[in-house]
């Protein structure tokens, strides 16, 4: 199927998210859509898949102009999109989700559906038990389900938005094989939005690069990472040095003493840890392996079953979060709009919330401070923009602006999740500046190179077990194996 977009324009208020974009996506090809955060990739993909209307321009499929409203209409035209968070129904089983949305209303022949599901999963190498409830699936499995569901609905073009976030290396390999097969064997059109350049390099036949809403280039692959980065940012980024500062003489800021933590799925037992001022500790592992339990325990958000949490010499075990906050512990969660920012409040209101101390709010002053922070942290937004209108990268920048200037300890859940290379680097500059002032950093990440680059020490979490690694000596490959559970081999 040949998809063409012509002169697509889309504005969100003052932001020109898509500015006269014309592109052709031929069948049988995997096209990577690149661009830094806020470049307009997601907007374009949502327009293509019917989730978003556009102001002007047209979409042609196999040369015919189409005018569809809504994702169902797009699917009817053969275009399906795999969302970053799969849109499945948690209470249903795999099979129920598979038939959900199929034509034929309630009288769907279950047996035929089951056969079709088995056929598709087998061909693509997916492992899906039809009777498994969705709640028990991993993100990768839910993705697989969504792909076969869209295929069963007859889509000829598949759009994937950041499909490799939160899935294991093994699942990534399966996904990529499946996508290649669909492109080459089924001659499908596949569009991949990703900020992970290695994924793009591994998978795509060609790339299109957006910057600030405009199409700035297309090229056929292969290309090197630095070539792609230059296209995205208009310049090459300098390499980042590994952390090497010696912190052995620094004082302890955090002591965890035989900590026992229980989460919904995993339990971390008997964890002891000393963290020194200025030290950066990376927490590696698949999502939900226990890293978030540790981070939350350090911030007073999770009460340990046993053991003690000592911050700056003071035993804060069992104290409320506010006491940790007062002692200089800064926490940021992975879900920025769930835990961190407040949708519905403006930037100025956020700043006022953390800076104003009197009975009355001095809105003039808060606005001024907000403007200052916007400039300082390079946030693309205005003081009176509601935070939910910011892109992910800008939300993370705002969170940095809200964080204490001189924390003792920062406990950060995936601080660069969903950010492009440039934004990630910028966030790390800010974090490291605080480290220079004496803060210790505990962070979790699913990006192995980020862990290796910034950490002094890495703790690998696997099913609640914790395995310490010296960041200076480890390699990405070794880390990958450890995360996959091969702890004994290390």
């Amino acid at each position, binding site marked *: 199927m040949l998809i063409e977009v012509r002169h697509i324009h889309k504005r969100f208020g003052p932001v020109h998210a898509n500015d006269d974009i014309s592109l052709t996506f031929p069948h049988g090809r995997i096209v990577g859509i690149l661009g830094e955060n806020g470049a307009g990739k997601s907007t374009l993909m949502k327009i293509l898949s019917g989730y978003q209307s556009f102001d002007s321009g047209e979409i042609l499929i196999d040369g015919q102009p189409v005018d569809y409203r809504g994702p169902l209409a797009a699917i009817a035209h053969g275009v399906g999109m795999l969302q970053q968070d799969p849109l499945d129904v948690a209470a249903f089983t795999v099979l129920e989700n598979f038939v959900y949305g199929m034509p034929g209303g309630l009288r769907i022949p279950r047996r035929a559906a089951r056969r079709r599901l088995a056929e598709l999963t087998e061909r693509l190498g997916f492992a899906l038990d039809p009777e498994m409830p969705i709640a028990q699936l991993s993100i990768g499995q839910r993705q697989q389900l969504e792909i076969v569901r869209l295929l069963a609905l007859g889509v000829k073009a598949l759009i994937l938005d950041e499909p490799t976030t939160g899935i294991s290396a093994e699942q990534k390999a399966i996904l990529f094989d499946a996508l290649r097969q669909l492109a080459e064997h089924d001659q499908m059109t596949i569009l991949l939005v990703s900020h992970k350049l290695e994924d793009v390099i591994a998978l795509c036949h060609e790339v299109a690069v957006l910057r600030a809403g405009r199409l700035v280039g297309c090229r056929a692959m292969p290309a090197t990472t630095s070539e792609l980065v230059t296209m995205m940012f208009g310049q090459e980024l300098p390499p980042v040095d590994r952390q090497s500062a010696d912190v052995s003489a620094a004082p302890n800021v955090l002591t965890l003493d035989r900590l026992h933590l229980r989460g919904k799925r995993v339990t971390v037992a008997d964890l002891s840890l000393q963290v020194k001022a200025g030290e950066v500790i990376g927490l590696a592992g698949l999502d939900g392996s226990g890293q978030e339990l540790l981070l939350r325990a350090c911030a007073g958000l999770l009460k340990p079953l046993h053991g003690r949490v000592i911050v700056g010499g003071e035993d804060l075990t069992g104290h409320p*979060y*506010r006491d940790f906050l007062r002692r200089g512990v800064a926490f940021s969660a992975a879900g920025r709009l769930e*835990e*961190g920012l407040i949708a519905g*409040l403006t930037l100025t209101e*956020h700043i006022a919330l953390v800076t104003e101390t*009197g009975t*009355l709010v001095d809105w003039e002053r808060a606005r001024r401070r907000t403007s200052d922070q916007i400039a300082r942290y390079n946030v693309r937004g205005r003081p009176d923009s509601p935070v939910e209108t910011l892109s992910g990268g800008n939300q993370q920048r705002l969170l940095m602006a809200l964080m204490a200037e001189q924390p003792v300890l920062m406990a950060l859940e995936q601080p660069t999740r969903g950010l492009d290379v440039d934004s990630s680097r910028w966030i790390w500059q800010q974090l490291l500046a605080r480290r220079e002032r004496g803060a210790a950093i505990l962070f979790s990440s699913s990006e192995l190179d980020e862990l290796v680059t910034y950490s002094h020490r890495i703790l690998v979490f696997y099913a609640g077990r914790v395995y310490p690694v010296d960041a200076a000596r480890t390699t990405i490959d070794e880390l990958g194996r450890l995360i996959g559970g091969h702890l004994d081999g290390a």
Partner: protein
Amino acid sequence: MKSQTLTAQAALTALPIILSLAITALLVMAVGADPREVFTLVWEGAFRDLRAVGQVVNFWIPLTLCSIGLVVTFTAGLWNIGVEGQMILGAVFASWAALTLDLPAPILVPVEILLAMLGGALWALLVGVLKVRLGVHEIFGGVALNALANVIAIYLISGPWQPPEGGSVRATPPFPAPALLPPLSDTFKVSLLALVIVVVAVVGVWLALRGTRWGLQLKATGKNARSAMLLGVPTGRSALSAFIVCGMLAGIAGSYRVLFTYNSLRPGVSGGIGFLGLLVVLLVANRALWAPLVAFAFAAVLGGSARLKIALQLDASLAGVLQGFLVLTALLSNGLRARLAPPTPISMIEEPAPQPIPAEAAHEQ
């Protein structure tokens, strides 16, 4: 483009009114009456002279007090359905003072009102503590405490505060003159003090919500309690303070009912005014300055319908029908407006969704 949206806005605002009037008119015709006459009667009932306006204002005062209190709890993301019980407790506390304290009016009246605020606040605080400390949703806590407040009032009326002579058992004895709020005049029977309190409450809440740190923290708690807590807002305390403020205002509303409207404590003295207040606040999308205006419209339609009931011997629930349609169509057109409007991030009609308030010491499982 601008003028186009303006027209659309005006149309959407007029739509609920026209629609609900039309539906009510059809209903009226269905029962064989003349809709023009019906509307005229309601109008006369509410506005024919000062006396009638006074009647409307007398209902408007407690309704506005409840509504403005509910604006506070809604801002904090709380469905304070217990506002009825808070009114009743305010009425009970004020009645206690009125029946037992022998003081001159300039001292007694303030004491009554302060006690009423205390009673309402205590009752609201109970809902709040149940919610913040024990995790009982405020709707369940509120409903339970409403029932309990009724029990208390009826026990007092039929027991300890029963009049000495037989007969009048559905109310306490009438309060002595110094305990009552004096009316402005014989024709315009409205309490000046209450009017002043309403104005102070509305303006005060409006200012507090937009200009104080407390108001900002309430708003943050209401929109996302989890994030607010992480940003250092004492969300539990915020929620409790919202309950207390609402309870105080509801308490005053309750005291007005006994100290002015009825001159005695009666069963069901809250009369569903608190629930009506919830409706008002939903309709005005939680905007403090709009609440008194919409409350007045409600008071006028409801108050005016007494005349309708007498003149046509129609069931006065017709006014309730009109009111119901008004709310329904207004919410409908608000929803429509949200759909048609360009994607402004915060929709004007968005009312804060209730959210669990994590206690400050909340720990995850």
